[in-house]
């Protein structure tokens, strides 16, 4: 009751005070312009389809590569040690370099080596850059998941005569992946937004489209429109990730 009243009070205060600021008329015209919003919203929605498409084809690749890298880091046999080193180097490098740098280097650099069309497309190499970067994060998350599975599970599986690879595949991984679903969800929510970075190397997704409108109309409202479209996806996704985390901590008790 008190919580509701105080929240209402704060909102009312904001609603009354903000328009009283001297520059409000200008800010409203520049950022919250209804006419510009209406004119640009359909085009933004259309451009957003590209963001969705990039996300949909990147996410599975990221998960698969992340899983492979995590398995590399987990190898125990001395003969496969180079794989383990590779896994460590990979996650260090790709978690350390800013995504946009990777996108530029790979998105322009590799096609610049002389690939013919359509193999030099920014869609392909931009996606490669995103996949390489994000799979490093996913690999780390899965690795912590694998390490969180108690050694006794492995012992039990091995003692039954199961091979190391079957132990990983049927016993450890199913549990590990399930455990890190909330952490992975957070990564994929972040991916949803970083997809927009592909705009730097050409594709006209929502961020770029908003920029074009901004330039044509000298108005920032298209960015507000783009933000709203993003939030329409990320907020439900975040709530769902929270729900999964809560469910998991309840189950543990």
């Amino acid at each position, binding site marked *: 009751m008190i919580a509701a009243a105080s929240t209402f009070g704060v909102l009312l205060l904001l609603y009354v005070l903000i328009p009283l600021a001297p520059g409000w008329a200008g800010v409203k015209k520049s950022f919250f312009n209804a006419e510009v919003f209406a004119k640009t919203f359909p085009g933004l929605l259309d451009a957003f389809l590209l963001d969705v498409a990039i996300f949909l084809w990147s996410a599975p690749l990221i998960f698969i590569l992340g899983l492979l890298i995590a398995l590399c880091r987990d190898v125990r046999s001395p003969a496969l040690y180079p794989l383990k080193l590779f896994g460590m180097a990979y996650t260090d490098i790709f978690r350390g370099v800013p995504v946009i740098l990777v996108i530029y280097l790979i998105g322009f650099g590799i096609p610049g080596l002389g690939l013919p069309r359509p193999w030099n497309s*920014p869609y392909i190499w931009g996606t490669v850059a995103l996949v390489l970067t994000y799979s490093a994060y996913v690999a780390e998350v899965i690795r912590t998941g694998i390490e969180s599975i108690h050694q006794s599970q492995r012992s039990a599986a091995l003692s039954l005569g199961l091979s190391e690879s079957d132990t990983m595949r049927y016993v450890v991984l199913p549990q590990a992946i399930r455990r890190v679903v909330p952490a992975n969800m957070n990564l994929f929510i972040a991916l949803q937004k970083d997809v927009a970075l592909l705009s730097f190397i*050409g594709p006209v997704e929502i961020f770029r489209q908003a920029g074009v409108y901004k*330039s044509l109309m*000298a108005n920032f409202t298209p960015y507000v429109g783009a933000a709203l479209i993003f939030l329409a996806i990320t907020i439900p996704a975040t709530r769902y990730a929270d729900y999964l985390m809560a469910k998991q901590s309840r189950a543990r008790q």
Partner: protein
Amino acid sequence: MKILMTTAVLLATTTGAFAQCASGLTMTEDTLTIATGNPAYFPWVIDDAPESKQGFEAAVAYAVAEKMGFTEDQVTWVRSSFDQAIQPGAKDFDVNLQQFSITEERDEIVDFSVPYYSAAMAVVTRQPVVDGGAKATLGSLKELAWGAHATTTAVPMLTEIVQPNADPLLYGDNADVVEAMKANQIDAALMDLPTALFTAAVLMDDGVVLGQFPPERSENPDQFGMILEEGNPLKACVDAALASLTSDGSLAAIEAEWLSATTGVPVIK
């Protein structure tokens, strides 16, 4: 009030008493604060050093300042982006010039001076594309893979006049556009003629300016104007200075000095 100001300025113009024109109207008294891009590109500014007065826009800026009664030392340069120029609220410059095209929509948010340059839009491409059969005709241009700087008027020009078969790829600045061309991800790009000439000659090994769309084309002549804060009374002063430079031939001379290479480029049919 505005009519009085304009009358006063006109009088000042005709009597040559410019010194009073801008007094009290600039951000800092006795100083004209001019903004340009970061970095500022050739041939608009040479070596990213507008204080050197080298480059078309640098030269125009100092010429206008002089007409308005400011000495060289009374000109201060700042750097700003297009976004900073159009955002609401007070600006940190008196005038801003960096190849801003005057459009109606923009004019509602900021004020433009009278034009100081009519820009032709030109097509930049690579020799291999020309060898492959690209010509300076609309029909041929439609077939090409296009790129452009996203926040320029090249974009509406592409969509309205060229109407390429494939959707253009858009980039954050001309440097990225050039990268994409080098990576053979796009065949051609649209940019203003002086920048196009510089790009093809200096930034690319095999660059070619295929043709130009003359500025006096039907719909939207592309004209550069200086940006001022909406309603800034200084505009009248700046306009008067530019009018004077135009009528006495100084503007044409500056153009001839810095943008002389722009003749001789074929016109797109």
